């Protein structure tokens, strides 16, 4: 009796193991055989660059394996819609995951989410030339300096490659590491450092409650530690014409503006400039002294901090109220004004509406929207 039971147990265990192994083997072989697309050629910008790659992976990861870094923040899940690339041939059918991220105009131009396009055959794509200059850097943390209760300045020293070539207003993508069960992510941060400081990158970062990357930066990352980043990305930059410039940004949105203003000081840029710094209360302001100093150094620069939530009984003598109201009151009425905005989509949309009402040409409003 006992013997029969043992035989039964052995047969059933053996059967399950054999079945599991057989099916696993079948799937592994099938993946090798069925999903093998062989070598494919990626043609970038009409023959400017040609890559021969193994097919089967997403266009985004295939390109980054070949040191071409398309911006991406969601890890290839098709949700951040940063990784848009115009695919002129071999992109296949537009998938249902991409559809909501693309406008009709983009679809007509063949724009796709490169994380959702699988390289199955020869592909032809076009990407902005700036992407070619995007590099992946290793850097060490020089300091984490608190600027307010929830904003800090992160200064990084580049290790490999040791220098970065960028324009004030551009951004990088910082790669967080895995911690406490949260996955590694890529997040975009504008550089607040001056381009002439080629060996360093400075970022201004606000803590996002429950944010995967900012929690890592604030709580886990230590000074001296090594991090990875890629960049520079983005087309947010000062124009070459010395038109009067209106800057509007609050909180960590100051980063690209801070770089632009210091760049203007460095190159003795003569354009008149106004900077509207929107914050909730006095404790949310930072760099005020430096900006005041800049008013003297730049010659034609006005710094206007505006508090929207400051209690009425405090000794604050600056502007109060919503940033759009302050802009409406204080914006100079000059010809050819240009505006540079950085912040949340809500703040940008409201400010663009106000500026257009005030007569600023829509095509002269440049902005960098937080995703």
């Amino acid at each position: 009796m006992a013997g029969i039971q043992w035989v039964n147990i052995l047969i059933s265990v053996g059967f399950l193991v054999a079945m599991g192994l057989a099916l696993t083997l079948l799937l592994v072989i099938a993946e090798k055989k069925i999903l093998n697309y062989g070598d494919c050629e990626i043609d970038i910008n009409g023959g400017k660059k040609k890559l021969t790659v193994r097919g089967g992976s997403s266009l985004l990861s295939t390109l980054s394996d070949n040191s071409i870094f398309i911006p991406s923040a969601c890890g290839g899940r098709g949700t951040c819609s940063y990784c848009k690339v115009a695919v002129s041939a071999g992109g296949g059918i537009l998938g249902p995951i991409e559809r909501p991220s693309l406008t009709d105009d983009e679809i007509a131009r063949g724009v796709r989410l490169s994380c959702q396009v699988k390289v199955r055959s020869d592909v032809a794509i076009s990407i902005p030339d700036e992407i070619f200059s995007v590099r992946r850097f290793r850097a060490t943390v020089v300091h984490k300096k608190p600027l307010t209760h929830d904003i800090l300045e992160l200064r990084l020293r580049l290790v490999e490659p040791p220098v970065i070539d960028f324009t004030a207003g551009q951004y990088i993508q910082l790669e967080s590491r895995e911690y406490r069960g949260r996955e590694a992510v890529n997040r975009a941060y504008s550089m607040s450092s001056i381009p002439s400081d080629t060996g360093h990158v400075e970022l201004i970062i606000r803590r996002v409650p429950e944010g995967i990357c900012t929690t890592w930066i604030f709580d886990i990352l230590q000074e001296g530690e090594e991090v990875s980043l890629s960049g520079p990305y983005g087309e947010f930059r000062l124009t070459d014409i010395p038109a009067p410039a209106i800057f509007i940004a609050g909180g960590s949105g100051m980063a690209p503006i801070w770089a632009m203003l210091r760049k203007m000081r460095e190159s003795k840029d003569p354009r008149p400039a106004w900077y509207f710094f929107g914050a909730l209360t006095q404790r949310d302001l930072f760099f005020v002294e430096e900006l005041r100093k800049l008013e003297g150094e730049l010659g034609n620069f006005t710094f206007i901090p505006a508090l929207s939530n400051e209690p009425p009984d405090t000794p604050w003598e600056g502007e109060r109220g919503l940033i759009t109201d302050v802009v409406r009151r204080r914006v100079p009425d000059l010809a050819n004004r240009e505006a540079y905005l950085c912040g949340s989509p809500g703040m940008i949309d409201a400010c663009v509406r106000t500026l257009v009402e005030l007569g600023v040409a829509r095509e002269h409003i440049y902005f960098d929207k937080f995703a």
Partner: protein
Amino acid sequence: MEQVTSSFVLSILLIFASAAFTDNILLARFLGMCSVIGVSNRVNTSLGLGAAVIFVTVVTTAMNFAVYHYLLVPLGLEYLRLITFIVMIAAVTQLIEMIIERLSEGLYYSLGIFLPLITVNCAILGLSLFMLNKPYGFIQTLAFGAGGGFGWFLAIVLISGIREKIDEKRLPPGLAGPGITLIIIGIMALAFVGFSGMIKI
């Protein structure tokens, strides 16, 4: 001889109809609910998911029929049918997904992307287990699988049609989404009770 053939065809049709209507896997057995609640908000996606389910039920009931009768029964391992069927279904759907992806991108986007959802759909497993309770041969089992899948297809398409209409109406916030879907499924299940007893197999 002719008599025998026509009665066989009739039995196939009856098995299909009973699996689709009187014994509707979703509305009479309440299996495969999670993907119905999740995916039934658009008719288009429901059509794709439903078609994928029909396809997979036919293939997996056939596979599991063979595995049960030619492997499990001879080895005396009938009691392992549950775990065997789960693993078989998971492997087969993955394999089908790969084949579809390779064969046709259009088919992949209309059908293939739903296959991972189906891997863990209990309606598929349910059909494979229920088929063992019936004295069916291989052809009849195919009809049973196809009928079960078709019944699920019919149910999710009908539900999504109603949900698309309801989306335009104002609902109490607490009822929106899964809440109203469950109510719709309940009312539809009552309607399907009308079919019960119509076909006796």
